[in-house]
């Protein structure tokens, strides 16, 4: 599509993470907050490694 350049994906993801935590904090499943925070940190790691697909196997091995 003929499109304008999107804002930086990482900033948008950060916004999504914030919205998710806020949604949980204001709902009945607030107790899931620490678990979801933990998962988001792991997700950030996964996304970071996946953003270097050619060397990802080496990064995984190093970890």
């Amino acid at each position, binding site marked *: 599509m003929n499109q304008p350049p999107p804002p930086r994906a990482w900033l948008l993801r950060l916004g*999504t993470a914030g*919205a998710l935590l806020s*949604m949980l904090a204001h*709902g*009945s499943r607030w*107790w*899931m907050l620490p*678990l979801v925070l*933990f*998962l988001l940190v*792991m997700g950030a*790691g*996964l996304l970071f*490694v*996946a953003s270097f*697909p*050619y060397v*990802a*196997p080496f990064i*995984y091995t190093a*970890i």
Partner: protein
Amino acid sequence: MGLFRRAWLTVVSEVAWRIPGRPQRLLAAFALAERGSMLDMLSAVELTERRGLRKLYFRHALDEARHAALFAGRVRSLGAIGRAEAAIEDSGQLVEAGVVAGTTLFERLGEEEFLSFVYVAEADAVEQFEVLLARRLPDPETAATLHRILKDEHFHVSYARTEVERAAAAGRPMRRSMALHRWRRVGQAWLRFSSDFGALMGGFWLGLAYVVGVGPFRLLGRLEPGGWQRPERGGSSLAAARTEG
């Protein structure tokens, strides 16, 4: 690269085709590749500016469809199981196996690059099938199927070579383009490995997260009861509509 590639193909084929159940998977992978190739060729029929090539692309597409059906037939005859069965039935497997992406090859490469890719890919397929037949690795019926398919593949190599040579004669850097395609195929194989390896390692870490992260919360979690419940909803205001996405 020719001799090295042939030696590599021989070693890999010798190992892979002798593992029980593996031939079904490999044939299913061939069926998927042929289906993907059919989609690429039909896209070429649609998009080509060279009307003289349309009929060749169309014939090529029909050949690929027939080959996919032949390979799928062999998978079924050999007793398809699990993933092999899914691979020949389910379109989603084409995406999962990386056979198709968001755009077709023709859209990505354009006419000349596409033709040089077709030449490289078809020549590789011919070489692979020839190795399998020379080493007598497939069962006799599958070998007969491969012989039938090889005839078509030779035709595909031949017309693609004619077009590539024509472009080279017009001063296009086709030799370089073909070399690039060969390396790109190696790169794609590495990326597939990287992705599979990533899924494996990610699975390991997330499995660990399940034990240490999810387990402690077990007593707080409960499944919803059956029956009608009162809905929890954010309403239809613009502010609510823009959230939770």
